[in-house]
Structure formats: C-alpha cells, structure tokens
C-alpha cells in the first residue's frame, strides 16, 4: 500500500529563524507554542516574507545583533547595498551603499554587526559594521541609525585596510569579545587581525608537502573561532575536505587536521561548550566532531572524536549552520532550499521547511522563546528584563526618546509593571519550569 502520511519529525521547541536567499528575500520561520494547550508547539512555518524577489538583491552575508531590546540585523546584498533592518518587523533602519564590493568579482563575503552596549546605544544610537570583500578590503564603519532610512550618513571614522595582497577571501569571522577578526580564502592563509589597532597579529602556515612531495594549494572555505572567550583557537574548513584546528598560542601549523568525506567543507560552526564543532560539506553532509585537548601517552597531543553525522535526506550543499544560543538545536540551510532544524544530542532531524530558493544564510533570533512564552504565561518575564524596562522608563523621562522595543513584550510589560512587582516569586518558578520543559 502506498504510504500516504509523511514520516513525522519530532516537533521542535518554539524557535524563530530568519533565512536569506538568492532572490533577496528574507523569510521568517517560526514554530509557535499552540494557544490553549501548554507544551505543544506547531510545526515551523513561514510567517513573514520581506522584500521583493529580485536577483540583483541576492543576499550574500548577514549578521544579527541579538538582543532583547532593539535588536538589529545587517544584510549585505549583491548590488553592494548594506541594510540595517529591524528583525522584528523588517523595517529598514539604515541603508548604505558601499563603494567597494559593487563589482561582480569583488563582492562582499563577510559582514559582522557589532553588539552594542545598552547604555551606549541609548546615547549614540549608532551601530558598527565590519565588512569584508572578496579582494580583501575590510571596512570598519559606524552607521548612524536615523529614523528615516533615506538620510543615512556614514561618519568620518571609517577604517579601511587590506587583509591580503593576492587571492580571494572567502570567509571571515569575529570572535566573541569582538576584538579580533580572522580571514581566510583561496590562496589566503588564515590570519587574525586586532580590530582596535587594525594590525595583523598572526598568520597560519600551510601544512608541509605530503610524502609524494605534492603541495596542496591553500583554499579555506569556512572558518570560525572555537570558543567565545578565547580568540586563540580557530577551526577552519578547507576545500580539500579537511577540518583544521589552529592554536595561536602554540604553533602556526594546524594542531589537528582531519579529513571528512569527499566534498569541500562549506560551513563550520562552533558549539557553546568550546569543544564541539559542526561542519557541513558541499554535497550535503552535516556532522559534528569533538575537538578536545588531552594528555595521551607521554607527549601533549590533541584527541579528536567524530561524534557522528546528521542524517536526514539532505541533498544540497550546506551554506550555513547556526547554533541556537540556548536550546540544544542547530539550524542548517543551503542549496537544497530547505531549512532544517536538528537536535544536537540525538542528531535527529527535528523539522524541515521548504523555502523555494537557494538559501545563503540562516540566523536564529534567540529571544523569540521568551516572547512566545508570554501569551501562555503572561506574567513570566525574568528578573533582568524587569530592570531593563525600568531603566528604559527612566530614559524616557530623561531624554524623551523612546527606543523601539520588542513588540508585544514591552507594551505588555509596561502595563503589567506593578503587577509584576507583586508577583515576583511565583513568576520565577514558572519561568524555570518552562525552561526545564524545553530542555527536557
């Protein structure tokens, strides 16, 4: 008999992800908790679509400043346009034309939106962007967040420098403290720059020739910092299907390098725990490996362990992997135009959403979970947020400036403020319990 029902994927916890595709569309995918019965979550669906399909608007890179209040999203398009968008409703806050990166062969490959300090942002209302083009021109520019997107002004303090003299940069990353950036690419060894001094502090050295005397040309396709706090450990994936671990503190050659299957490594993402790496290949294989230091035998050496592959009919090249900051979930997307959500522990496919275009980047909005929880348990904001809101109110009194705040949340909270004060204790318990449910 024909099987008429699809193989059911175990549902995923409430999550909100944004995907960026080759037609310049931004799609918002949400899995919301179902109203009424607690604990059940609807399957992820496309809830919003921003932008019109236009091939010249193809999104090459994106970065999110993921905060509870006033989050921002930066997007680099093929036409050389860089837009700063509100990830909650898709309004364009600022759009700036970058003078470099408008050619076909010198497109933007890396974009990073710096996190803003809450106190600072309220005063200066600007954001800082780091862009990298394929030729290696890196620009650090502050952007004023004007209310009307039309008059955007680029301040004078634009810092520009060249990362490499030859070759093509294809990947860049900024470490957790946002002091260092790394670059790598075709013919460009992994190098680390100090962003404050705009100075190169470290360059990798290519591995020696093999036993046959054959030298494999350097071609890095993806790289990332391994730990959030530590900028000294770097994981890079090469075109020759190698995953390498570099340690700035110890040596210039890779500390560990191992092969994975036969297609080039296209995306590398580090886990929060600082020793697990997720990587995806050009033929749609996704795997995680544990890279860990340890004392084996007499000499110091590294031990690595391939934890396993994520199997789920993924047939197209993986372009982007992102780890959810709290939940044990990773999201991957790529040329097969599916957004897939995976469980880290069981390596099981939780859910797949078909999005019609080749996807370039996926990002996760980590604060959605709290937002989604509000309708179910309306009086359950955490303690910190409470303070923040109070803080905000103070500002309103001071400068008569109201920052755009997370939609539902803020309005509700300001209304409920007095209630919240009274009910602080049971609230906490409730939120903890929900957290536990999500984890379990």
């Amino acid at each position, binding site marked *: 008999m024909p*099987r008429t029902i699809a193989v059911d994927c175990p549902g995923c916890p409430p999550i909100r992800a944004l995907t960026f595709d080759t*037609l310049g569309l931004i799609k918002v995918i949400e899995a919301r908790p179902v109203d009424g019965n607690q604990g059940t979550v609807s399957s992820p669906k496309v809830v919003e679509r921003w932008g019109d399909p236009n091939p010249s608007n193809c999104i090459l890179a994106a970065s999110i400043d993921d905060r509870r209040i006033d989050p921002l999203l930066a997007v680099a398009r093929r036409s050389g346009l860089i837009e700063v968008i509100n990830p909650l409703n898709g309004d364009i806050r600022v759009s700036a034309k970058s003078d470099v990166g408008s050619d076909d062969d010198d497109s933007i490959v890396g974009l990073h939106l710096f996190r803003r300090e809450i106190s600072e942002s309220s005063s200066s209302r600007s954001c800082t962007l780091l862009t990298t083009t394929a030729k290696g021109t890196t620009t650090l520019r502050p952007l004023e967040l004007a209310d009307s997107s039309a008059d955007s002004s680029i301040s004078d303090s634009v810092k520009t420098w060249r990362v490499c003299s030859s070759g093509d940069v294809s990947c860049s990353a900024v470490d957790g403290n946002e002091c260092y950036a790394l670059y790598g690419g075709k013919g460009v060894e992994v190098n680390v720059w100090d962003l404050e001094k705009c100075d190169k502090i470290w360059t990798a050295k290519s591995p020696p020739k093999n036993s046959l005397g054959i030298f494999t040309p350097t071609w890095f*396709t993806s790289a990332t910092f391994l730990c959030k706090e530590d900028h000294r450990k770097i994981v890079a994936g090469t075109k020759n299907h190698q995953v390498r671990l570099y340690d700035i503190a110890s040596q210039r050659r890779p500390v560990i390098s191992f092969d994975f299957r036969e297609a080039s490594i296209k995306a590398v993402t580090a886990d929060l725990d600082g020793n697990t790496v997720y990587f995806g290949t050009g033929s749609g294989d996704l795997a995680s490996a544990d890279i860990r230091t340890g004392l084996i035998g007499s000499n110091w050496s590294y031990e690595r362990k391939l934890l396993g592959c994520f199997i789920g009919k993924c047939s197209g090249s993986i372009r982007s992997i992102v780890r959810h900051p709290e939940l044990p979930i990773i999201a991957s997307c790529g*040329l*097969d135009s599916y957004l897939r959500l995976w469980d880290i522990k069981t390596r099981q496919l939780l859910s797949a959403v078909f999005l019609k275009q080749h996807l370039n980047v996926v990002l996760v909005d980590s604060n959605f979970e709290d937002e989604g929880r509000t309708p179910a348990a309306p009086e359950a904001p955490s303690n910190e947020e409470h303070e923040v809101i109070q803080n905000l109110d103070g500002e309103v009194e001071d400068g008569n400036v109201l920052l755009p705040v997370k939609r539902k949340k803020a309005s509700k909270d300001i209304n409920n403020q007095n209630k919240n004060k009274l009910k602080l204790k049971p609230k906490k318990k409730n939120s903890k319990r929900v957290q536990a449910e999500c984890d379990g």
Partner: protein
Amino acid sequence: MGAKRKSREAIAEAAEEDHKERREEEKTSRKSQVLASTIKNKEKRSAVYVKLKQEKKREKRKKAKAREAAEKRALELGEELPPKTVPRTIENTRELDETVCKPDDEELFAGNDADEFSGILKQEVIPKILITTCRFNSSRGPAFISELLSVIPNAQYFRRGTYDLKKIVEYAKNKDFTSIMVVHTNRREPDALLVIGLPDGPTAHFKLSRLVLRKDIKNHGNPTSHKPELVLNNFTTRLGHRVGRLIQSLFPQDPNFRGRRVVTFHNQRDFIFFRHHRYIFDTKETKQTEIKAKKTTEKDKEKEDASTPQGKTIARLQECGPRFTLKLVSLQHGTFDTKGGEFEWVHKPEMDTSRRRFFL
C-alpha cells in the same frame, strides 16, 4: 442518476451473493483450515496454496464478469456507463512532495527570470553546443555523437585529446558556447552524459542507458536539418523544473514547424526517456498506408489517435535518431568541479525510503 443507481444496485447484488457464498465457504473451511504457512509438510502446504490461488482467480474472474455484464446492460438500455475504475499505479500514488511547482508561485517565476538559462530561453542568446567525449572513445561512442549532432542544431564536435575538462570549459567560455555535452563511454558503450551550462550554469550528470542507435531502429526515418520542436513531459518538482530548463537550453527556442521534427524528453519515475520523431498529417482515406503505419508504429499511433479530435486528418509518427534513457545522478552548482563544487542535488541512498518517492 437513476440509471447509475440501478447499475450500482446490480453490482451490489452481485457482490452480496459473492459475499454469501464466500461466507459459507469460510464457515466450512474454517474448522478444518489452519493458516497455510503453519503447515509443515511441504506437499500439503503447496496443495493448500494452489487451492487458495485458484479461489482467488475464480473470484477475480467473477468480478470482471459482473462488471462486464453491468456495462453491457447499461449499454443496451442506453444508460450511463458505470464509472471506469482507475488502476492504481506507482505514479498516481506518488508520495506527497512539497517541492512540486505550482502555477501561481511568483517566486518560481522570479527565480526563473534570474537563473542561468533565462538568456537562452528568452531568445537573447542562440544556443551553441560543444560536444566532446571522455578520453578513450570508440565504436558506439562516435556513432552516438554523430547522431546527437544531427539531433541538436548548432552543435559542434571537438576531439577530446588529453585536455582537462576544466580547460575545455574555459575554452568554451571564451568561444561563447552556451553548453558542453560530454559523452562518457565505458567498455566501448556510452554510459554517462554530462551537460554543463556555460558560463556559470549548473552541471548535470546523467546515467545513460538503453541506447539504441538509428540504424538499429526498424523503419527509421532520417531527420532533416530543421530546428526541432521540443516536448518536455512531467518535470514537476523544483529540481525537475531546473533539469527541464537545462535540457531546454540545449535547443533553439524557435522551431521550424515545417520540418515536422519532434524531440521528446519524457520523465517517468525519475527516468528521462529520449525519443526523436518525424510526424506527418495524413487523411484517413488512404487505407493501405494506414495499415502499414499501424504495423510499424502501433503504439505511437494509438497515442496520437487519442489526442487528435475525431476527424479525417491523423498524425503519423516515424521514429528517427537515437533512443536512450537518462537518469539524474547529480546536479552541481557552477561549472564542472567534482572535488570542490557545491551540489544542488546528489542522490544518496538514505533518500530511497519508498518506491513511490520521486525527485523530478
């Protein structure tokens, strides 16, 4: 309505009778009969199986007879015929696929406008094809290529020599070719076809099987040099759509209808069947030729008869050119680069969860 009900009643009666009989049989047999597979003696077991099989056959025949009778009665009384049952095939019970293209999808059309083939399909660029082979090429390979050259207009054959395929791609880009076709042979038998879109189009790798050359087709015709018409059947999903467009971009978009030449790519269960025909419109009065035609291309004619409205003119087909079957192995983003390339689709064994799951 009434007629239908009557016929239905008749069927129901017949069915009821059947049921009664069966029930009685069951009653008698249940006492003695145990499950056939539990009988340990092989001879006895097989005897039971034979009996079961015969019973099944009898029932089937009875059913068919009842259906026929109902139909006949309806025909005699001039009533509406009972609805014909549609046999269940693998195609029409295909597993639900969300990637099937829908006609009202604006993103699909926007994507089509932006893709690599849009220049050719909008007739801004005339397709120009480079055909080459693998390094070792003999016997059926060259014969197949010469026939491909007659099928695809504006195609040129280049000897492979010892050039790298990547070098050939570079060369073809500089010479403004729009596609490259590589025929791969193994043991003197063509077994794979590589279609590379240029300058940055996708690379499709097909398995090629069941190749019949022109001279091996009975009563084959010889194609003219007119630009052929193209028929693409059943390319439904996104992937299928893309493969279809890749194939479409090999042919000029302005066929000479006077040439009456058709090239067909028919997709069925992920196998793409290639056929090349000439057709002619004929009147039915010439009986002798018709009979002759029936003999040669019976199958094709039946199809045509069904499609043409009832009238005197009919279309007759004559097969010419090669006949082969393609199966997609992988579709790669960008030009040929197996090591470092990004694949849009690769066939993986874990995708074969069901026989009713198709990708094109």
